[in-house]
């Protein structure tokens, strides 16, 4: 210790001790309240903010993935539906066309058959008319002939009626 004699920085002096105690305690009190505790809280807040933000980002990412999957499925469904609709429309179209064709054919057939029937009827009517006309004409001719040859014989009369009746039957 001898060589430290007169080494002023190591001499404990009451004035410096008192002042350093006051300043140190004051510095401690003021800095704790206005600097260190706010900084501590600020850092803690920021750290929790960051971890929250990271957790939220993770959650958002997961949600996005979910949403994407959902979208995909919706899209796939829509595509499926479209395909179905298209197929159905095609089928419907084919069916309609087929039906229309069928109907047209039926109509045509019906018209054809009606026409045939009408023709047949017309033909029959014409035939009957022709027969009647031919009968009348034949009767008239025959009458005229017979008037001349068979004047007033009853046996001839009934014979002629029988013949006319047979003709009508045909």
């Amino acid at each position, binding site marked *: *210790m*001898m*060589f*430290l*004699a*007169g*080494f*002023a*920085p*190591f*001499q*404990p*002096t*009451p*004035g*410096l*001790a*008192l*002042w*350093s*105690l006051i*300043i*140190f*305690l*004051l*510095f*401690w009190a*003021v*800095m*704790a309240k*206005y*600097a*260190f*505790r*706010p*900084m*501590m*809280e*600020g*850092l803690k*807040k*920021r750290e929790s*903010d960051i971890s929250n933000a990271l957790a939220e980002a993770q959650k958002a990412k997961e949600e996005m993935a979910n949403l994407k999957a959902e979208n995909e499925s919706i899209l796939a469904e829509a595509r499926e539906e479209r395909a179905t609709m298209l197929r159905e429309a095609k089928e419907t179209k084919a069916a309609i066309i087929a039906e229309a064709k069928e109907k047209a054919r039926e109509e045509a057939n019906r018209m054809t058959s009606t026409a045939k029937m009408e023709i047949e009827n017309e033909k029959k009517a014409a035939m009957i008319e022709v027969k009647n006309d031919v009968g009348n004409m034949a009767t008239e001719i025959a009458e005229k002939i017979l008037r001349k040859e068979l004047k007033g014989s009853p046996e001839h009369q009934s014979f002629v009626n029988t013949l006319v009746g047979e003709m009508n039957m045909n």
Partner: protein
Amino acid sequence: MLRILAIVAILMAFSPSLTSQADKNGLKKAKEQTHQGHDHSGHNHGHDHSGHNHDHSGHNHDDHKGHDHGHKHDDHAGHNHGAHNGDHGHGDHGHHPHYHVTDYNKDCGVAVKIDNPEPSYDPTATAIHHISDANVWTIMDMVRVPLPAIIYNKDRGMEFFSTGKFQAGHHDNGHYGYKDYVLFEGNIHRITCPAFDAKDKYEVQGFDKEEMVSAAGKNYEKKFAIINNKAYNIEQKTIWDGGMLGGTPSSFIDLSPTKNVVSMGLVSLILFLLFRKAVKKYQGAPNAPSGVQSFLEPMFQFIRDDVAVPFLGDKHEKFLPLLMTIFFFILGLNLWGQVPFLGNVNVTGSLTVTAVMAIVVFILTNINGNGDYWKHILWPPDTPWFVKIILIPVELLGMFIKPLTLMLRLAGNISAGHIAILSFVGLIFIFGKAGTNMAGSLTGTALAIPLTMFMMAIELIVAFVQAFVFTILTASYLGAATEEHHHDDHH
């Protein structure tokens, strides 16, 4: 590594004083023989000394003694002649007259002799002066800021005045006295002589000091102020060292806000403003750190995550403000002391300041100590009785040794760094023969610049390391005092 460097620096700083002390003792004998030689030849006794040109130029400190032919050598019995460092230490004092007190055992109005010594340079005294606390703040030996003086005088009570009244000059010695106060080497001293006519302003011509041994066998420096060509003993402020470090009982207590006190206040204020600026950024929307916040925050987080949490665990929030206070207070003051040309402020190298912090830590450790802590000290568990006999005193001593090491480590490291830098700068004066040899000065400068730069870089690291070490040890002491033990699990 850093500790080794610090110890080397301390040894380097003190070795000149040790060796020169030894040299002086050796030279003293040689000198007395020389004097006797003169006595026999009967030359110039009691005359003006200017004519004497003894071949002592190689020994700076002994230059003056060669001239003391007017005195009986018996007067100096018990004195150490090697310590006439009074008013010279810088090389620029060659033209200043140097006063020698003729009888160092007297106190009042002692006759003085004047000489014009060769310029000399004492690196030890210069370094110690530069790192000591002072009542004036000297910047580059040009600007002297007077500080308020608050003195508790045991005879007159409290006294307030400005140290501007002393009109400090070279070496922070006051040119004028105020009442019975004078300013010597930056510190207020009081003239002890009751018969001294203490006016409000009087001229102080110079100072002298001499190393003495007190009646109790302690070494101390006896100092004198020279007023009206008479020397008056002056005493320093009260120092609480029990005479171990050159302190003497004193009639006044200096409570002035000194250079160190003002530095502490300024650094505290700067830190407060910096932190307020940083803390404001935590308010409002969360944002990335910027500005001063980016500088303070990593240190804050480092102390929190690597010092407080590992030692204190869940309780770290309770002690965090204390640890931060210690870290930033010490770091700020360490760095403040590193600023060149700012006056070599050596606050954290001052044992008083580190002692106060160590005492605060000691008190906090012990009032926060839980049952387990006290049990470990007073009745160590799981140890046989004969081990307890050894362990209890060791533990009790350890309680006090812990804060003591805190106090000494910081003060020693920082003072050592300051001394090392000043010693390297001192090379300029040593090589330059106290400024008289231009070539030598240039050689010294060429050496001093790289060495000082290296030392400053080391000191910058030391500033951080020592602040960190004080903080981590505080955390470990607090951690040990508050730790919950489970004796069933370990031991």
